[in-house]
């Protein structure tokens, strides 16, 4: 599904964010990526979703080596993923429903396909009554759930979520986790980045831990 080999990332200012990171996500797996702030979790997710190129190393997505891919091929790979951004990246002036419909529009879905899927997704995340509300008027928790609904509306093969429970209380966080687990049960591989190691350990899923730019598994050994 996803394979990173010796991935490193150094920014133009010389800052080394990731060093020799290797990991493998199996189809249908549920994973956490943990680490303190600034250890490169977001950068690693951005590399996986092709928002940033690695400085070195090899990234394979859905069996395709991403090195040297042209832009249409990269876009095609992105359409197989769903992403929950740390800052949600909702379009505030659009309604909740239109925000959820956005990934469908990107892939050329018909109005009927949009009508069939969006209300169902909104109901799934508890926003059935808020579909017409502008995204700007939603609360923090509602925006978080809306971002998740948008990420999964295409039933992606891979779901990446960056600190999805970062700004909500414990009950809401548990509710969000239930949503992710239901998505995972439908066959989607899930990778959740969080700084909260204790939170990740509560659910018993495999997790990778980033420390000082390198990847350790839950036991502290570098992932081969």
């Amino acid at each position: 599904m996803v394979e990173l080999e010796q991935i490193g990332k150094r920014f133009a200012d010389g800052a080394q964010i990731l060093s020799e990171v290797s990991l493998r996500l199996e189809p249908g797996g549920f994973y956490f990526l943990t680490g303190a702030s600034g250890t490169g979790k977001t950068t690693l997710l951005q590399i996986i979703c092709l928002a940033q190129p690695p400085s070195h190393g090899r990234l394979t997505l859905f069996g395709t080596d991403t090195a040297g891919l042209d832009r249409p091929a990269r876009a095609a790979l992105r359409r197989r993923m769903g992403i929950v951004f740390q800052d949600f990246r909702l379009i505030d002036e659009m309604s909740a429903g239109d925000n959820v419909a956005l990934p469908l529009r990107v892939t050329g879905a018909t109005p009927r396909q949009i009508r069939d899927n969006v209300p169902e997704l909104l109901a799934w995340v508890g926003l059935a009554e808020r579909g017409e509300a502008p995204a700007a008027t939603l609360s923090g928790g509602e925006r978080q759930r809306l971002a998740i609904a948008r990420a999964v509306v295409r039933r992606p093969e891979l779901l990446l979520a960056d600190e999805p429970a970062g700004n909500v209380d414990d009950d809401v966080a548990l509710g969000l986790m239930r949503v992710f687990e239901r998505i995972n049960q439908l066959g989607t591989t899930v990778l959740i980045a969080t700084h909260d190691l204790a939170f990740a350990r509560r659910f018993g899923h495999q997790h990778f831990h980033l420390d000082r730019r390198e990847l350790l598994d839950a036991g502290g050994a570098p992932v081969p």
Partner: protein
Amino acid sequence: MIALRWGRQRRDLPLRQSASARWLPWVLALMVYLAGLGGVGLTLLHDTLRAARGSLAASLTLLVPAEASPARLETVLAVLRQTRGIVSARLLPPAEVARLLEPWLGSSVVLAELPVPRLIDIRVEPDGGTDFAVLRQHLASVVPGAHLEDYQPWLAGMRAAARRVDGVLVAAIVVALLLMAVSAGFAARFDLVAQRSVIELLLLLGADDGDIAHPLAMRSLRLGLWGGALGAAGVLLTTIALGDAGSLIRSPAPPAAIGIADWRLWAILVGAVVAAGLIAMASARATVLRRLARMV
């Protein structure tokens, strides 16, 4: 995954109008106005040259000194009529000469009291092989002081001047078209900057570059057509306002004019509008695709 249509149906992406929509049509209108006037100017210039060639290249005037006797005039006419390439030679009657000179001398002057040369209007076959140097010598031997005035030097000068004006007009049109492309490209860059966060989001959601460039290019096409229509209206009004200005120029050639009934005017106007739309669209698309290639 949801079964989706993967044909090349264009996606309805939420890319808003930006502030460039307010100024781009006016910039394009100005460029279309300049290019359209250039096109009308080129048409008039070529019409003028063609008309001058048609009416003047086959025409000469022989000025015979006023004191020449009728017998010598008859001899001159006979010489002319026997010369190869000359179709006709006609001595202008005094009344016709008076009419020709009236703009300069007025109607109250009695021509018979002035030493006005006698005028012979000569028509020659174009490319008729007339040897004007020999003819001039021959005429001078019959009537010393006879002066053969042809319009070839004037035409040659006009052609040379027309070539320069032609070059300037073509350059002005090309510059106007280039400025259209630059303006539309600049507006597209403005759109990209104004909507960068939405465009990045769309790219991360899997949008193709073409899907993002398409609505922006279509918007530029609409703005280009709208601006082009404004500019073309300006050209039309200017052409109507200057409709008979050519008649104010005193020239040996008939004045050229282009009116609203002239299909070429409409071809220029429609062409300018379509060109504005297509150039704006192509420039916006190329700019967006080039810029997107540097994004995520």
